[in-house]
């Protein structure tokens, strides 16, 4: 039988991969930023899933503290990314990283 923590860990891995896929394949900046966020949620879920110690058991507090800190970092990074995206949209009138000049911009 599938343990709850295994189920959540697998979901976490799927989320991480989905986010990564979105980051790599879409060119719209909002999609990329959301992709990174979904990746982050995957990592947090992995940490939380491993904190679960079983029915009625005390769960491990350390991963929860790590996730809280991680969420703060993710919020800051997302805020900065959104702000940059808005500025890019405002100055170039498009929300992607397509380069129209020099620097072989192998967009990720």
């Amino acid at each position: 039988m599938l343990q709850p923590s295994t189920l959540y860990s697998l979901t976490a891995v799927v989320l991480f991969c989905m986010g990564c896929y979105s980051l790599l394949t879409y060119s719209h900046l909002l999609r990329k930023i959301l992709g990174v966020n979904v990746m982050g949620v995957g990592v947090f879920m992995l940490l939380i899933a491993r904190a679960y110690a079983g029915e009625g058991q005390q769960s491990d507090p350390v991963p929860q503290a790590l996730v809280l800190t991680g969420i703060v970092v993710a919020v800051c990074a997302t805020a900065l990314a959104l702000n940059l995206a808005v500025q890019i949209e405002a100055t170039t009138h498009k929300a992607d990283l397509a380069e129209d000049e020099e620097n072989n911009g192998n967009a990720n």
Partner: protein
Amino acid sequence: MPTDQWHLIPLAIALPLSAVLLAILVRRATVYLLLGILLLMSANAVGLTWLVSSQGPKTYYMGGWEPPLGIVLYADGLSALLILMTTIVGFAAGLYALRYFPTKTDDEDATHRKNHFWPLWMFLLAAMSALFLSRDIFNIYITLELMGLAAVSLVALAGEPVALRASMRYLLVSMAGSLFYLVGVALIYANFGVLDLPAIRAVINQSPAAIIALSLMTVGLMMKTALFPFHFWLPPAHANAPTPVSAVLSGLVIKASFYLLVRLWFQGFDIFLTPIIMIIMGAMGAMAILWGAFHALKQERVKLLIAYSTVAQLGYLFLLFPLIKSGEASKLAWSGVFIFVLAHAFAKAALFLAAGNILKAYGHDRISDLGEMNRYIPVTVFAFGLAGLSLVGLPPTGGFIAKWLMIRSAILGEQWWCAVLIAGGGLLAAGYILRVISRAFRTVPDIPRPKPLSPLTEWTALGLALLALGLGFTGVYTLDLLQAGTPEFILNLAGGIP
């Protein structure tokens, strides 16, 4: 208390952090206050270096709380040296920024840029000091993110669309890299229940979870270091940032994630260091050296040329892995690579500041349209040339000492390809540095007269170049200091890698 003097360790983080607050709260006249704090930071870094060299490495528990509850800081010769390097380059580029961002201007954008520059700058220095002192893999994640966010914002300060796109790409790569790293941290904690590096070293085994965790952390950090083939974000970000920012990004920031890779592999996960892994890392480094130099040779703008040169120079750092082989060769490689880190930091920062001067004086940095620089901006040209010498690795510069140690290590370890690569990479570097220098003395008929430069911006570039040169004369002291942090793993390598 006899341990009081070790409060220098947290001070290395607290001083720049207090400067961040000052820079935000007190707008007027802060620049001089901030320079004062930078002076204090330099004194602190020198003190810390001296302490570590006389008393050996030190573990410091913040507030007396021991792990797993408290935060552990750890200073050895390597971290002290890198903090000293960060402070010096941060200070010099900060002085440059004084004149780079105009003091009195009616332009709203320029004022806005100047007001945002200083808090971010000090924040970057604080994050880097914290990173060099961290030993807990989760705290390392936090410091990585703090450093990345500050660095991205500083690139975006340039404000032009190219710079905005470059910083956006930098941010996305940086965030993705951090998340890859964090998955590794999560796996380690889930399987071994520890986060402190020495504790990890004690319990780690060859389980699949550990291998996946280490691979993910390594890939994440390589993305942030811009090691080939993850280098694509680096040239546009470093070339389009404001000049003082380019200098610290290329000189310092990318070294931080390399430093973490070294700490992880040699001080936590050394059981995974097999010859195959060493060769793969070295091969990526070799590709970086060739690819970066090849593209640097083709660039049309000075700043882009220097940025591609950074891609190449990063490759040398990764030769550390194949060069670590047996006792003596390993010690030589260890010292050589870290002296290389220092020499490159000073030389590359000097090159970027000099390139910024060229850009400011001529209004552009297209290599083909430059000329008569020796007449108009002689100090800058001299700085560029000196820093270039160190990059090429000619005596008596720091770059020479570093490459000489690395080549000796390669010969001792019978890694001939590394020796050839190190020497050949120097020739390629000579090629792209000469492309710029040869323009300096060219007489061009009707070149528009360049704008005069502030002496401060010229002399800070020269100062950094002189440091790269001076490193060649203080090599022995630096070597001794690095011994105070060489991992036991390397010192114990009498019989070579299993």
